[in-house]
C-alpha cells in the first residue's frame, strides 16, 4: 500500500503525522497550564489537592505524547533531530529538565518521606507548566523565524581541516537561548502559555464539582483568554505578512519570499479551512464558556481543545508544505531543513507508515478509557474515597 507512494508523498504524510502529534501535544498541555494555576485557583490545601489530582490523571498522556512526538520526529526527519537538538542545546535541555521534575511531582508530592517536601514538588509543577509551555512555544516559533546554523554532511569526511567532523553546527554561543530574544518567538511562547491556561480552566470546568473553585474559574477564564488572544494575534499577524523561506522544487535552492506563509495558506485551501475552523472553535469554546456558563461550561474543553488541535496542526502544515523550509537557517539559507532534505529513506518511511496505522486504534482506546474514567465530576469529598491520591 505505502510502497507505491513516491518519496515526496511519504514525506508529506509523515509531516502530517508529526504535525498532528505536535498539535495533540499542545492541546494536552492543558495539564501544564493547570499546573501554573494551582495556587491561584486553589486557596486551601484541600482545593489544591483536588486540582492536582484532576491534572494528575492526565499528565502521563501529555508526557507520552511529547515522547512519541520526539520519537516520530527522529524516525521521519532525523536531520531535524540532529540539527535542532544538538544545536539549540540549552533550550531543549531546559525543556527536558522541566519535564523531568514534573514526572515525579504528582506521585511524590504528598507521600511521606519525600525528602524535598510537598511545596518543592508543587513548585516543580508550576515550573514545568511555565517553562514547558513558554519554551516549547518559543522553540516552535523558530520553525517560522529561523535559527542560525549550518549543515554540511561532507564534514563527516573532513579529517584534515582542524574542524570536528560534525555535520550540524550551531552559530553563536547561546545554543538556542537567543530564540527567546526574538519578540515574535516570544509572542508564540506566551500565546501557548496562556492557551494552556485557558484549556486548563475549561478542563477544570468540565471535571470539578466545587462551587468556590468554579467561581474562580469563571474569573480566570477571561483573564487568560485576553492575553492569549493578544499574543496569538501578534504572531498570526506577523506570520501572514512576513517573508518566508521558500524552496525551489526543481533545484532545492532556498530563498526568501514575501508573504510566503500567506501564499501557503492560499495555495493549501484545506489547511486554510483547518486554520479558520480551528481558530473559530478555540474562540467559540472560550466565549460560550464565559457568556453561556450554565449550559455550556462543561463543553468548552472539547470545542477549544479540538480548535487547538486544528489550529496548531494547520500552522505546522504551513511551515512544511508547499515547498517551504520548515526549519530555516538564517545563517546559511541553503542549510535550511525541508521535508525533502531532512527525511528518512523511502523504505523507513514506508515501514513507519504501516506502524502509523495503529494511531487511530491508539486514539480510540485513549478515548474509551478517558470516557470510562471521567464519567462524573469530582469533588473534594469524593476524592477522599479514592485509594490512590496524589
Amino acid at each position, binding site marked *: 500500500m505505502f510502497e507505491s507512494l513516491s518519496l515526496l508523498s511519504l514525506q508529506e504524510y509523515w509531516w502530517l503525522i508529526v504535525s498532528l502529534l505536535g498539535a495533540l501535544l499542545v492541546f494536552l498541555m492543558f495539564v501544564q497550564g493547570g499546573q501554573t494555576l494551582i495556587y491561584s485557583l486553589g486557596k486551601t490545601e484541600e482545593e489544591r489537592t483536588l486540582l492536582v489530582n484532576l491534572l494528575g*490523571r492526565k499528565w*502521563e*498522556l501529555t*508526557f*507520552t505524547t*511529547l*515522547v512519541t512526538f520526539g*520519537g*516520530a520526529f*527522529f*524516525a*521521519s526527519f*532525523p*536531520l531535524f*533531530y*540532529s540539527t*535542532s*537538538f*544538538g*544545536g539549540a*542545546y540549552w533550550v*531543549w*535541555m531546559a525543556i527536558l529538565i522541566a*519535564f*523531568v521534575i514534573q*514526572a*515525579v511531582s504528582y*506521585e*511524590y508530592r504528598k*507521600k*511521606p*518521606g*519525600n*525528602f524535598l517536601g510537598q511545596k518543592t514538588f508543587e513548585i516543580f509543577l508550576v515550573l514545568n507548566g511555565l517553562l514547558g509551555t513558554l519554551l516549547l512555544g518559543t522553540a516552535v516559533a523558530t520553525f517560522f523565524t529561523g535559527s542560525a546554523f549550518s549543515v554540511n*554532511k*561532507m564534514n*563527516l*569526511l*573532513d*579529517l584534515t*581541516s582542524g*574542524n*570536528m*567532523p*560534525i*555535520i*550540524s553546527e550551531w552559530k553563536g554561543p547561546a545554543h538556542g537561548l537567543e530564540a527567546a530574544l526574538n519578540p515574535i518567538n516570544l509572542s508564540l511562547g506566551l500565546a501557548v502559555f496562556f492557551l494552556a491556561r485557558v484549556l486548563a480552566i475549561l478542563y477544570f470546568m468540565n471535571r470539578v464539582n466545587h462551587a468556590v473553585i468554579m467561581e474562580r474559574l469563571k474569573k480566570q477564564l477571561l483573564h487568560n483568554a485576553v492575553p492569549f488572544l493578544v499574543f496569538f494575534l501578534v504572531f498570526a499577524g506577523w506570520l501572514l505578512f512576513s517573508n518566508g523561506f521558500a524552496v525551489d522544487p526543481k533545484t532545492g535552492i532556498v530563498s526568501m519570499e514575501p508573504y510566503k506563509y500567506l501564499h501557503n495558506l492560499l495555495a493549501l485551501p484545506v489547511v486554510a479551512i483547518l486554520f479558520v475552523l480551528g481558530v473559530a472553535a478555540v474562540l467559540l469554546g472560550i466565549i460560550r464558556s464565559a457568556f453561556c456558563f450554565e449550559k455550556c461550561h462543561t463543553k468548552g474543553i472539547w470545542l477549544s481543545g479540538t480548535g487547538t488541535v486544528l489550529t496548531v496542526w494547520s500552522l505546522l502544515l504551513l511551515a512544511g508544505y508547499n515547498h517551504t523550509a520548515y526549519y530555516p537557517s538564517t545563517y546559511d539559507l541553503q542549510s535550511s531543513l525541508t521535508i525533502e532534505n531532512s527525511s*528518512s*529513506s523511502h*523504505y*523507513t518511511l514506508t*515501514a*513507519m507508515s504501516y506502524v*502509523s496505522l495503529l494511531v487511530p486504534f*491508539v486514539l480510540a482506546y485513549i478515548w474509551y478509557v478517558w470516557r*470510562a*474514567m471521567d464519567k462524573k465530576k469530582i469533588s473534594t469529598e469524593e476524592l477522599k*474515597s*479514592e*485509594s490512590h491520591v496524589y
Partner: protein
Amino acid sequence: MNHIDFSLVDWSRAQFALTACYHWLFVPLTLGLSFIIAFMETIYVKTGNEEWKRLTKFWMTVFGINFAIGIATGLILEFEFGTNWSNYSWFVGDIFGAPLAIEGIMAFFLETTFIAVMFFGWNKVGKKFHLLSTWLVAIGSNLSALWILVANGWMQLPGGMKFNPDTARNEMVNFWQVLFSPVAINKFLHTVSSGYVLASLFVIGVSAWFLLKKRDMIYAKRSIIVAASFGLLASVFIMLTGDGSARAVAHHQPMKFAAMENLYVGQQNAPLAAFGILKADPSAPGHKKMDFRYLVEIPDVLSYMAFLNPNAYVPGIYDLVHGNPAHGIPSYNERIAKGLTAINSLAAYKRARLAGKDSLAAASLTTFEANYSNFGYGYYANRDVHELIPSIATSFYSFRIMVFLGLHFFALLLVVLILTVKNKIETKKIILYTALWTIPLAYIASMLGWIVAEVGRQPWVIQDILPTIAAVSQLKASSVQLTFWVFALFFTALLIAEIGIMLKQINKGFNA
C-alpha cells in the same frame, strides 16, 4: 584527528552513562513487578479473595513510586541521542529512529493509558476490565523494552542497512533483519528476564523483612510464593539467554569478548577464567595489557562457550590489535588504513559527482563500498591503536561479578520457594536476612550487565562503523559538564526522595 575535543567526547559519554544508569535503576523493577502485580490480581479475580486485592494494591503502590522516576529518567535518554550525539542521529537515524517511534506509538500509550485505570479505576470499571488494564500495563512496559533493546542490539551488530553515499548516512533496507537480529533477540530476552529476577528478589526481600518483623505474615508469604515461582523460572531463562548473549558477543564483538575474559593471546582449547584477580603489566604501558595475580581456570570451556567446540580458536586482544594471518584476523592498523580509504573514497565520490565526472565517481564508490565495513576505523588514523581496546578490568570484573550473583540468585530463589511451600520460611532467619540483603545485590548485578555490554563495546557507538569521537554534537565540553552535574544533582535528589517514600510506604504494611 588531533582536533577532536576529547574532553567533549568524554563528558558526552559520561552524561549518557549517568542518565542511562539512573534510568536503569528503575526500569527492571517496573518490568518484573508489573507482571507480579498482574499475577496477583488474576488470583484475586479468580478467587474473589479480598486479601489478594490488598496484596495487589500494596505492590501497585510500590510500582507507582518506582514508575514515576523511571519515566523522569527515561525522557532524557531519548532526546540525548539528538542533544549530545547529533552526528549519530543523522548517520543512523534512518534505522535507529524507527524503533523509538514504534516504542512510543505501540508501547508507551498502552502503558500510560491503562496505568490510569490500574490506579484510579478500582471503583470506576469492572473487575475484568481492571485486570485487563493491569495486564496491558505489564505488556506495554515490556514492549517498550523490546523496541529500545532492538535499537541497542542493532548498534552492537548493525545489519539490515546500506550506506547511501548521496545522503551520507546508513539507510534501512530490511526491517525484519533489524528486528530479529540475533543480538537484539538475545539482548531483549536476557534483559527483561533480568528485570523479572530483580523484581522477584525485591518482592522476596521486602516480604522477608515483614517475616523478620513478624508483621503481615500471610501477605508476605503469599508474595514470596508468587515472586519466587516467577523469579525461578526467569532465572533459568536468564542463564540460557546469557549463554546465547555471550556466544553472540564472541561471534560479533571479539574484542569485547576478549576483554571480558582478559584473553591477551588467542588460543585453541581456551580455558575459562572462572575466578581471577588482575594486575597491570608494566612491560607494556599504554597497551592496556593485564596479567593475572590469581587465576582459577576451567580447561576448554571458553572455546566451548564461544563456539560450541572445545577445540575452537578464541582470538585474544593481541591478535585483534596486531592481526593474526593464520586465523584470518586483520590488524587494527590494516583496518584503520581501510577505514581511511573508505572515508577518502567517499569524499572523492562526492567531489566527482559535483564535477560531473561519472566514471571517477563510480570508481570511488566501488572502492568505498569495498572498504565500508571498516569505515569507523578511519577516524583513528595517526592515533594509538590501543585506544580501540575497551577497559579490560571493568569488563572482566563486571562480567564475573554479574555471573556469580546470578548463580546466587538462582540458589536463593530455589531455597526460598521450597521453604515457603513447606511453610518453614519464617523460621529460617539466615535465609530471610540473605533475601533482604540480596535486594541491593540484584541492582548491582543488573547494572553490571549493562556495564559489560556498553563498556566492552567502546569506542564504538555503531560497531566498526561509527566511534564516539565521530558521533558527538558540536558543543563546548563545559556545557555538557554543566548539564552532567545538573542531572547528577537532580537524579540523586529524586533517588533519595524515591527511596525515602518507598521505605515509608513499605513500612505502612499491607493493611494500610
